[in-house]
Protein backbone atom coordinates (compact mmCIF):
# COMPACT_ATOMS: atom_id res chain seq x y z
CA UNK A 1 0.00 0.00 0.00
CA UNK A 2 1.59 3.21 -1.18
CA UNK A 3 0.91 6.67 0.14
CA UNK A 4 -0.34 7.88 -3.22
CA UNK A 5 -2.81 5.00 -3.44
CA UNK A 6 -4.19 5.99 -0.06
CA UNK A 7 -4.52 9.59 -1.17
CA UNK A 8 -6.34 8.45 -4.31
CA UNK A 9 -8.81 6.44 -2.24
CA UNK A 10 -9.34 9.53 -0.11
CA UNK A 11 -9.92 11.77 -3.11
CA UNK A 12 -12.35 9.25 -4.59
CA UNK A 13 -14.43 9.35 -1.44
CA UNK A 14 -16.08 12.59 -2.53
CA UNK A 15 -16.83 11.26 -6.01
CA UNK A 16 -19.64 9.07 -4.73
CA UNK A 17 -21.90 12.09 -4.74
CA UNK A 18 -22.34 15.34 -6.57
CA UNK A 19 -22.48 18.57 -4.62
CA UNK A 20 -24.36 21.20 -6.54
CA UNK A 21 -24.66 24.66 -5.11
CA UNK A 22 -26.94 27.36 -6.42
CA UNK A 23 -24.65 30.13 -5.31
CA UNK A 24 -26.96 33.10 -5.88
CA UNK A 25 -29.68 31.49 -3.81
CA UNK A 26 -27.08 30.36 -1.25
CA UNK A 27 -25.84 33.88 -0.43
CA UNK A 28 -29.46 34.96 0.02
CA UNK A 29 -30.14 31.99 2.30
CA UNK A 30 -26.99 32.63 4.32
CA UNK A 31 -27.90 36.29 4.81
CA UNK A 32 -31.38 35.25 5.93
CA UNK A 33 -29.82 32.76 8.35
CA UNK A 34 -27.52 35.43 9.84
CA UNK A 35 -30.47 37.80 10.24
CA UNK A 36 -32.64 35.15 11.88
CA UNK A 37 -29.84 34.20 14.31
CA UNK A 38 -29.35 37.87 15.22
CA UNK A 39 -33.10 38.24 15.70
CA UNK A 40 -33.20 35.17 17.96
CA UNK A 41 -30.28 36.50 20.05
CA UNK A 42 -31.97 39.91 20.35
CA UNK A 43 -35.29 38.45 21.48
CA UNK A 44 -33.52 36.17 24.00
CA UNK A 45 -31.64 39.19 25.38
CA UNK A 46 -34.88 41.14 25.64
CA UNK A 47 -36.58 38.22 27.42
CA UNK A 48 -33.77 37.88 29.96
CA UNK A 49 -33.47 41.59 30.61
CA UNK A 50 -37.22 42.20 30.72
CA UNK A 51 -37.58 39.78 33.68
CA UNK A 52 -35.09 41.91 35.64
CA UNK A 53 -36.67 45.18 34.41
CA UNK A 54 -40.09 43.98 35.62
CA UNK A 55 -38.46 43.14 38.97
CA UNK A 56 -36.90 46.62 39.18
CA UNK A 57 -40.24 48.30 38.38
CA UNK A 58 -42.15 46.14 40.86
CA UNK A 59 -39.71 46.67 43.73
CA UNK A 60 -39.37 50.36 42.77
CA UNK A 61 -43.13 50.71 43.14
CA UNK A 62 -43.11 48.81 46.46
CA UNK A 63 -40.21 50.95 47.72
CA UNK A 64 -42.28 54.03 47.02
CA UNK A 65 -45.60 52.61 48.23
CA UNK A 66 -44.84 50.45 51.30
CA UNK A 67 -44.37 52.35 54.58
CA UNK A 68 -42.47 49.62 56.53
CA UNK A 69 -38.77 50.68 56.92
CA UNK A 70 -37.17 47.19 56.85
CA UNK A 71 -39.18 46.20 53.79
CA UNK A 72 -38.13 49.46 52.08
CA UNK A 73 -34.46 48.51 52.64
CA UNK A 74 -35.16 45.05 51.12
CA UNK A 75 -36.78 46.71 48.08
CA UNK A 76 -33.70 48.89 47.57
CA UNK A 77 -31.42 45.85 47.82
CA UNK A 78 -33.61 43.92 45.38
CA UNK A 79 -33.30 46.71 42.79
CA UNK A 80 -29.50 46.69 43.19
CA UNK A 81 -29.48 42.90 42.79
CA UNK A 82 -31.58 43.01 39.59
CA UNK A 83 -29.16 45.56 38.08
CA UNK A 84 -26.26 43.29 39.09
CA UNK A 85 -27.92 40.28 37.39
CA UNK A 86 -28.43 42.24 34.14
CA UNK A 87 -24.74 43.25 34.12
CA UNK A 88 -23.59 39.73 34.99
CA UNK A 89 -25.60 38.16 32.15
CA UNK A 90 -24.42 40.77 29.66
CA UNK A 91 -20.78 40.29 30.62
CA UNK A 92 -21.09 36.52 30.38
CA UNK A 93 -22.80 36.79 26.98
CA UNK A 94 -20.14 39.09 25.55
CA UNK A 95 -17.48 36.57 26.54
CA UNK A 96 -19.41 33.61 25.14
CA UNK A 97 -20.22 34.97 21.70
CA UNK A 98 -16.58 35.32 20.64
CA UNK A 99 -16.19 32.07 18.73
CA UNK A 100 -13.56 32.61 16.07
CA UNK A 101 -13.52 29.65 13.69
CA UNK A 102 -10.50 30.98 11.83
CA UNK A 103 -8.19 30.38 14.80
CA UNK A 104 -5.82 27.43 14.66
CA UNK A 105 -7.16 24.20 16.17
CA UNK A 106 -5.03 24.60 19.32
CA UNK A 107 -6.03 28.25 19.78
CA UNK A 108 -9.67 27.38 19.18
CA UNK A 109 -9.57 24.60 21.78
CA UNK A 110 -7.87 26.88 24.33
CA UNK A 111 -10.39 29.64 23.67
CA UNK A 112 -13.29 27.18 24.05
CA UNK A 113 -11.81 25.87 27.26
CA UNK A 114 -11.58 29.41 28.61
CA UNK A 115 -15.24 30.09 27.74
CA UNK A 116 -16.34 26.81 29.32
CA UNK A 117 -14.33 27.52 32.49
CA UNK A 118 -16.04 30.89 32.80
CA UNK A 119 -19.42 29.21 32.33
CA UNK A 120 -18.45 26.69 34.96
CA UNK A 121 -17.51 29.43 37.46
CA UNK A 122 -20.79 31.22 36.71
CA UNK A 123 -22.89 28.11 37.34
CA UNK A 124 -20.82 26.89 40.26
CA UNK A 125 -21.15 30.22 42.05
CA UNK A 126 -24.89 30.58 41.25
CA UNK A 127 -25.71 29.78 44.88
CA UNK A 128 -23.82 32.88 46.06
CA UNK A 129 -25.09 35.39 43.50
CA UNK A 130 -28.32 33.94 42.08
CA UNK A 131 -29.95 32.07 44.99
CA UNK A 132 -28.78 33.29 48.42
CA UNK A 133 -28.92 37.11 47.82
CA UNK A 134 -32.52 37.19 46.52
CA UNK A 135 -33.60 34.77 49.23
CA UNK A 136 -32.07 37.01 51.92
CA UNK A 137 -33.77 40.03 50.33
CA UNK A 138 -37.10 38.21 50.23
CA UNK A 139 -36.55 37.13 53.82
CA UNK A 140 -35.90 40.73 54.95
CA UNK A 141 -38.80 41.94 52.81
CA UNK A 142 -41.27 39.50 54.37
CA UNK A 143 -39.86 39.91 57.88
CA UNK A 144 -40.23 43.69 57.57
CA UNK A 145 -43.94 43.51 56.74
CA UNK A 146 -45.89 44.92 59.69
CA UNK A 147 -49.49 45.68 60.50
CA UNK A 148 -50.63 48.37 58.00
CA UNK A 149 -52.93 49.94 60.62
CA UNK A 150 -49.87 50.93 62.72
CA UNK A 151 -48.67 53.03 59.76
CA UNK A 152 -52.10 54.34 58.71
CA UNK A 153 -51.48 52.70 55.36
CA UNK A 154 -54.23 51.41 53.11
CA UNK A 155 -53.69 49.75 49.76
CA UNK A 156 -56.21 47.02 49.06
CA UNK A 157 -54.24 45.49 46.12
CA UNK A 158 -50.91 45.36 47.98
CA UNK A 159 -52.57 44.13 51.16
CA UNK A 160 -54.25 41.26 49.31
CA UNK A 161 -50.97 40.23 47.67
CA UNK A 162 -48.51 40.64 50.55
CA UNK A 163 -48.15 37.88 53.20
CA UNK A 164 -48.99 39.97 56.23
CA UNK A 165 -50.00 37.23 58.73
CA UNK A 166 -47.33 35.04 60.42
CA UNK A 167 -48.73 31.88 58.80
CA UNK A 168 -48.60 33.36 55.31
CA UNK A 169 -45.06 34.57 55.98
CA UNK A 170 -43.91 31.05 56.89
CA UNK A 171 -45.62 29.49 53.86
CA UNK A 172 -44.18 32.11 51.49
CA UNK A 173 -40.66 31.78 52.90
CA UNK A 174 -40.82 27.97 52.66
CA UNK A 175 -41.99 28.22 49.05
CA UNK A 176 -39.19 30.67 48.23
CA UNK A 177 -36.57 28.46 49.92
CA UNK A 178 -37.73 25.50 47.82
CA UNK A 179 -37.70 27.61 44.65
CA UNK A 180 -34.13 28.84 45.20
CA UNK A 181 -32.98 25.33 46.19
CA UNK A 182 -34.44 24.10 42.88
CA UNK A 183 -32.66 26.90 40.97
CA UNK A 184 -29.40 25.92 42.64
CA UNK A 185 -29.95 22.24 41.76
CA UNK A 186 -30.71 23.07 38.09
CA UNK A 187 -27.44 25.04 37.83
CA UNK A 188 -25.42 22.28 39.49
CA UNK A 189 -26.99 19.71 37.18
CA UNK A 190 -26.14 21.75 34.09
CA UNK A 191 -22.59 22.06 35.37
CA UNK A 192 -22.27 18.33 35.97
CA UNK A 193 -24.08 17.12 32.84
CA UNK A 194 -23.00 19.66 30.21
CA UNK A 195 -20.12 21.92 31.19
CA UNK A 196 -17.75 19.55 33.03
CA UNK A 197 -17.87 16.77 30.38
CA UNK A 198 -17.23 19.39 27.68
CA UNK A 199 -14.22 20.78 29.57
CA UNK A 200 -12.91 17.23 29.99
CA UNK A 201 -13.42 16.57 26.29
CA UNK A 202 -11.54 19.78 25.35
CA UNK A 203 -8.70 18.98 27.77
CA UNK A 204 -8.53 15.50 26.33
CA UNK A 205 -8.21 16.91 22.80
CA UNK A 206 -5.57 19.40 23.92
CA UNK A 207 -3.56 16.57 25.47
CA UNK A 208 -3.96 14.49 22.32
CA UNK A 209 -2.74 17.30 20.11
CA UNK A 210 0.26 18.13 22.31
CA UNK A 211 1.29 14.52 22.66
CA UNK A 212 3.92 13.35 20.18
Amino acid sequence: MFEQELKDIWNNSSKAGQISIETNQLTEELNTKINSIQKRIRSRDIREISASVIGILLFGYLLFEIPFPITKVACGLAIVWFVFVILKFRKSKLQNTKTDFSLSVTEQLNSQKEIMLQQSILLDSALYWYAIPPFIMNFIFILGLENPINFNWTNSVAESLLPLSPNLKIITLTGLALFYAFTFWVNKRALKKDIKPTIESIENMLQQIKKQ
Partner: protein
Amino acid sequence: MYRQKKDKYFKEILERNKHKIYRICNIYAVPPIEAQDLFQEVVFQVWKSLNSFKSKSSIDTWVYKIAINVCLRSKMKLDKNYCKTDRLESIHFTPIENEIDAYGQEKIKYLKECISTLNETDTSLIVLYLDDLSYKEIAIITGLSENHIAVKMKRVRKKLFECITPKIN
Protein backbone atom coordinates in the same frame (compact mmCIF):
# COMPACT_ATOMS: atom_id res chain seq x y z
CA MET B 1 -15.79 44.14 1.35
CA TYR B 2 -18.42 45.15 -1.19
CA ARG B 3 -21.37 42.82 -1.47
CA GLN B 4 -20.89 41.80 -5.12
CA LYS B 5 -17.16 41.31 -4.71
CA LYS B 6 -17.73 39.25 -1.57
CA ASP B 7 -20.37 37.10 -3.31
CA LYS B 8 -18.05 36.42 -6.26
CA TYR B 9 -15.10 35.62 -4.01
CA PHE B 10 -17.23 33.33 -1.85
CA LYS B 11 -18.49 31.41 -4.87
CA GLU B 12 -14.94 30.86 -6.10
CA ILE B 13 -13.78 29.64 -2.68
CA LEU B 14 -16.73 27.31 -2.36
CA GLU B 15 -16.39 25.84 -5.83
CA ARG B 16 -12.67 25.19 -5.26
CA ASN B 17 -13.06 23.70 -1.79
CA LYS B 18 -16.45 21.99 -1.70
CA HIS B 19 -15.14 18.46 -2.19
CA LYS B 20 -12.39 18.92 0.39
CA ILE B 21 -14.89 20.26 2.91
CA TYR B 22 -17.28 17.40 2.22
CA ARG B 23 -14.58 14.74 2.67
CA ILE B 24 -13.66 16.16 6.09
CA CYS B 25 -17.31 16.46 7.15
CA ASN B 26 -17.96 12.92 6.00
CA ILE B 27 -15.26 11.62 8.35
CA TYR B 28 -16.46 13.58 11.38
CA ALA B 29 -20.20 13.08 10.91
CA VAL B 30 -21.61 10.80 13.57
CA PRO B 31 -25.39 10.10 13.67
CA PRO B 32 -27.65 11.97 14.20
CA ILE B 33 -25.38 14.60 12.65
CA GLU B 34 -24.87 13.97 8.93
CA ALA B 35 -22.05 15.13 6.68
CA GLN B 36 -24.54 17.47 5.00
CA ASP B 37 -25.27 19.22 8.31
CA LEU B 38 -21.57 19.78 8.99
CA PHE B 39 -20.96 20.84 5.38
CA GLN B 40 -23.56 23.56 5.50
CA GLU B 41 -22.31 24.73 8.91
CA VAL B 42 -18.80 25.08 7.44
CA VAL B 43 -20.23 26.99 4.47
CA PHE B 44 -22.13 29.25 6.85
CA GLN B 45 -19.06 29.94 9.00
CA VAL B 46 -16.93 30.67 5.92
CA TRP B 47 -19.55 33.16 4.73
CA LYS B 48 -19.86 34.74 8.19
CA SER B 49 -16.10 35.07 8.72
CA LEU B 50 -15.06 36.06 5.20
CA ASN B 51 -14.87 39.78 6.04
CA SER B 52 -12.41 39.06 8.84
CA PHE B 53 -10.01 37.01 6.68
CA LYS B 54 -6.60 38.63 7.12
CA SER B 55 -4.48 36.93 4.41
CA LYS B 56 -2.02 35.57 7.00
CA SER B 57 -2.36 32.22 5.24
CA SER B 58 -3.89 31.22 1.92
CA ILE B 59 -7.68 31.35 1.76
CA ASP B 60 -7.81 27.57 1.20
CA THR B 61 -5.79 26.91 4.38
CA TRP B 62 -8.16 29.25 6.20
CA VAL B 63 -11.16 27.23 4.91
CA TYR B 64 -9.53 24.05 6.23
CA LYS B 65 -9.16 25.71 9.66
CA ILE B 66 -12.87 26.52 9.70
CA ALA B 67 -13.85 23.02 8.52
CA ILE B 68 -11.71 21.27 11.15
CA ASN B 69 -12.88 23.62 13.92
CA VAL B 70 -16.56 23.14 13.03
CA CYS B 71 -16.11 19.35 12.94
CA LEU B 72 -14.22 19.21 16.24
CA ARG B 73 -16.86 21.40 17.88
CA SER B 74 -19.55 18.99 16.70
CA LYS B 75 -17.59 16.15 18.32
CA MET B 76 -17.53 18.08 21.59
CA LYS B 77 -21.26 18.81 21.17
CA LEU B 78 -20.53 22.52 21.53
CA ASP B 79 -22.99 23.43 18.80
CA LYS B 80 -26.39 21.82 18.93
CA ASN B 81 -27.84 23.65 15.98
CA TYR B 82 -26.96 21.31 13.13
CA CYS B 83 -30.60 20.64 12.65
CA LYS B 84 -31.97 18.92 9.58
CA THR B 85 -34.93 21.28 9.42
CA ASP B 86 -32.50 24.18 8.94
CA ARG B 87 -31.01 22.69 5.77
CA LEU B 88 -30.18 25.17 3.07
CA GLU B 89 -32.20 24.55 -0.08
CA SER B 90 -29.45 25.85 -2.33
CA ILE B 91 -27.07 22.96 -1.52
CA HIS B 92 -27.90 19.60 -3.06
CA PHE B 93 -26.16 16.29 -2.52
CA THR B 94 -26.92 13.75 -5.21
CA PRO B 95 -25.45 10.26 -5.03
CA ILE B 96 -23.86 9.16 -8.32
CA GLU B 97 -24.50 5.53 -9.15
CA ASN B 98 -21.66 3.50 -10.72
CA GLU B 99 -19.15 6.37 -10.49
CA ILE B 100 -16.90 4.15 -8.37
CA ASP B 101 -16.79 0.36 -8.76
CA ALA B 102 -17.56 -2.00 -5.89
CA TYR B 103 -13.88 -2.55 -5.09
CA GLY B 104 -13.27 1.19 -5.01
CA GLN B 105 -16.21 1.65 -2.67
CA GLU B 106 -14.88 -1.10 -0.44
CA LYS B 107 -11.51 0.64 -0.22
CA ILE B 108 -13.20 3.90 0.75
CA LYS B 109 -15.14 2.01 3.43
CA TYR B 110 -11.93 0.52 4.83
CA LEU B 111 -10.20 3.88 4.84
CA LYS B 112 -13.09 5.42 6.79
CA GLU B 113 -13.08 2.50 9.21
CA CYS B 114 -9.36 2.89 9.85
CA ILE B 115 -9.57 6.67 10.26
CA SER B 116 -12.39 6.17 12.77
CA THR B 117 -10.00 4.21 15.01
CA LEU B 118 -7.85 7.34 15.43
CA ASN B 119 -8.58 9.96 18.06
CA GLU B 120 -10.13 13.30 17.02
CA THR B 121 -6.91 15.28 16.66
CA ASP B 122 -5.03 12.50 14.86
CA THR B 123 -8.02 12.31 12.53
CA SER B 124 -7.65 15.99 11.72
CA LEU B 125 -3.95 15.48 10.95
CA ILE B 126 -4.54 12.49 8.70
CA VAL B 127 -7.32 14.12 6.68
CA LEU B 128 -5.08 17.12 6.03
CA TYR B 129 -2.23 14.82 5.07
CA LEU B 130 -4.46 12.82 2.72
CA ASP B 131 -5.53 16.09 1.11
CA ASP B 132 -1.84 16.59 0.27
CA LEU B 133 -1.22 19.57 2.49
CA SER B 134 2.38 20.37 3.41
CA TYR B 135 3.56 20.16 7.03
CA LYS B 136 3.81 23.94 6.97
CA GLU B 137 0.12 24.26 6.07
CA ILE B 138 -0.88 21.59 8.62
CA ALA B 139 1.13 23.51 11.23
CA ILE B 140 -0.79 26.72 10.43
CA ILE B 141 -4.12 24.91 10.71
CA THR B 142 -3.36 23.06 13.94
CA GLY B 143 -1.18 25.66 15.65
CA LEU B 144 1.62 23.12 16.21
CA SER B 145 5.22 23.36 15.02
CA GLU B 146 6.29 21.61 11.81
CA ASN B 147 8.65 19.35 13.79
CA HIS B 148 5.84 18.35 16.09
CA ILE B 149 3.65 17.57 13.07
CA ALA B 150 6.42 15.50 11.48
CA VAL B 151 6.83 13.35 14.60
CA LYS B 152 3.10 12.92 15.07
CA MET B 153 2.47 12.18 11.41
CA LYS B 154 5.02 9.38 11.43
CA ARG B 155 3.12 7.65 14.22
CA VAL B 156 -0.36 8.33 12.84
CA ARG B 157 0.55 7.21 9.33
CA LYS B 158 2.06 4.00 10.67
CA LYS B 159 -1.13 3.30 12.59
CA LEU B 160 -3.28 3.97 9.53
CA PHE B 161 -1.13 1.82 7.24
CA GLU B 162 -1.11 -1.04 9.72
CA CYS B 163 -4.90 -0.93 9.82
CA ILE B 164 -5.66 -0.59 6.12
CA THR B 165 -2.97 -2.70 4.43
CA PRO B 166 -4.27 -6.14 5.56
CA LYS B 167 -7.83 -5.12 4.75
CA ILE B 168 -7.07 -4.09 1.20
CA ASN B 169 -4.64 -6.89 0.48
